[in-house]
């Protein structure tokens, strides 16, 4: 006699995952149908099936390019984050610097990437260095702003405690300010991770010997849209993955802070 299994109720997270995937598949299907029915030529808008085929047929090229771009983005992100944290620490120790530092930071942030990138290429060549620098420039600002808040907005009762312990500013930094600012670092990372990807791509447009951005530019100037979109698909997927990784890391490392 067959055993009857009790139906397991769907958990909230399973449901939301299903909805997400449902939406993605739905959008892609609508796209595919639209292109076929409307007889849209591939040089205007390629169908997802064509894009996927292109991606698979040139997998090694795309993988190589992705590695280069992601390497640049991640290294730039790491450096930008470290620089942001360091400057925030500096300003915390010497509050007089805050105004000057923030003005400079805003200046850098406001300068459009597309203006800086070619200059860096001329100074530093076509290797990975300019890409990493540009990515770092793009990502340090959200980190700086967030971490500054995190380092400084400590509840007075905690500060009193450490003050009563006669803690010096380094102990205060290590035991109190830095761990307190960790949630803020992750809030900044959620913003700066996609920025890092964009930074690396834009940097490659203005001078690269390899990478996904360069692939995109070459594909566009050949009006080879399937190739262009294949690169975009990879970028979108990478962006989603990175966001997931960041959120997971946040859950582990910042377990005490519930961000809504």
């Amino acid at each position: 006699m067959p055993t009857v299994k009790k139906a397991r109720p769907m958990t909230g997270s399973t449901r939301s995952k299903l909805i997400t995937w449902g939406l993605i598949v739905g959008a892609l299907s609508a796209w595919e149908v639209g292109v076929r029915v409307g007889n849209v030529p591939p040089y205007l808008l390629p169908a997802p099936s064509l894009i996927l085929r292109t991606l698979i047929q040139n997998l090694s090229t795309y993988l190589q390019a992705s590695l280069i771009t992601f390497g640049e983005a991640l290294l730039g992100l790491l450096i930008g984050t470290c620089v942001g944290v360091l400057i925030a620490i500096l300003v915390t120790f010497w509050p007089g610097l805050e105004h000057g530092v923030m003005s400079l930071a805003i200046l850098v942030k406001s300068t459009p990437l597309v203006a800086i990138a070619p200059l860096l290429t001329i100074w530093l060549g076509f290797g990975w260095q300019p890409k990493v620098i540009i990515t770092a420039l793009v990502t340090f600002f959200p980190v700086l702003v967030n971490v500054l808040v995190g380092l400084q907005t400590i509840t007075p009762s905690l500060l009193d405690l450490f003050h009563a312990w006669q803690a010096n500013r380094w102990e205060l930094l290590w035991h109190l300010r830095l761990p307190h600012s960790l949630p803020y670092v992750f809030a900044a990372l959620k913003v700066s991770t996609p920025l890092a990807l964009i930074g690396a791509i834009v940097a490659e447009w203005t001078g690269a010997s390899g990478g996904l951005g360069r692939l995109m530019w070459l594909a566009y100037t050949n009006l080879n849209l399937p190739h262009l979109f294949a690169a975009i698909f990879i970028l979108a997927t990478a962006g989603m993955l990175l966001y997931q990784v960041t959120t997971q890391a946040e859950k582990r490392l910042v377990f005490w802070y519930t961000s809504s």
Partner: protein
Amino acid sequence: MIRRSSLLLLVLFSILLIVACQPSAPPTTPTPPRTALTFMAGYKPQANLPFVGAYVAKEKGYFEAEGLDVTIEHSPGQGQHLQLLAAGKVQVTTQDAAVLLQRRADPGLPLVSIALIGQRGQQAFAALKESGMVTPKDWEGHLVGYKGTPPPDLFALLHAAGADVNKVNLVNVGFDPRLLVEGKVDVYPLFKSNEPFLLRSWGYEITLWDAADYGVPTLGLTYVTSESLLREQPDVLARFLRAALRGIDYAAQHPEEAVQIVLKYTGPETNPDHMRYMLETELKDAQSETTREHGWGWQTQAQWQALADMLHQYNVLPSTDITNAFTTRILEMAKSSQ
């Protein structure tokens, strides 16, 4: 829960790891010292004839035979190649003749053409055949596109065809021939060796107007160097040019093989037939009375003056002396030691 010090170590380790994994320069094997030279193609890898000359010369060992160790780079397309040449980071690059004259005038870049590969320019205009337009006079009352700033050859073309400039609507378009097929523009500015292939592959027939057919002087791509390098290392330049011209010659004899070589520099997004088309079109325009007499890349005062006069007439070039914009010296040196 991860300790903070471990987190710090992890971060430092990741930086080291990523830096270590970046591609580094390959180890050099001990060989007799060759002169290093960087050639930067003025645009992305494709079958423009000066690029092909360098690609073939490198592949076939012509550079090596001249004792040159040539690195081939490509400009991302925003004029960096000229800046890098002026800054001495690159020794030879390519440039369209008209732009070379303009950049010499403003901002005064010290550029010199050592060879005029494109004896005629590739700038042309196209409309869909179904539009029914036959001569540029038919452009009156239509939307005509231009890239960047309205080019002098456009006005010269209209003038030569007897069309009234004021009756033509001009609009700035970027690189996008799709504008033509979608009807957003009636006449589109293109390079003869490039966009027509794309348009035909999409199934469209086009009518092409070449400024040269209307007696308007145009010149094509050149090999460019800086005035200082010309002064200081003419022999190195001669060796480069000799090998590159040999490469062009080889490509003219073996176009199929040349396309295969080009494909090594482009990626999978490039169509080999497109490259073949580009090569053959440019090979045609690389030949003239002058080259039949003196060889690939020869250039004369008359050619350059005609171009300069036309540019001046349409106010894109001040009245300048173009004697130093080009030189046949390197061409002669390249020929002599053969």
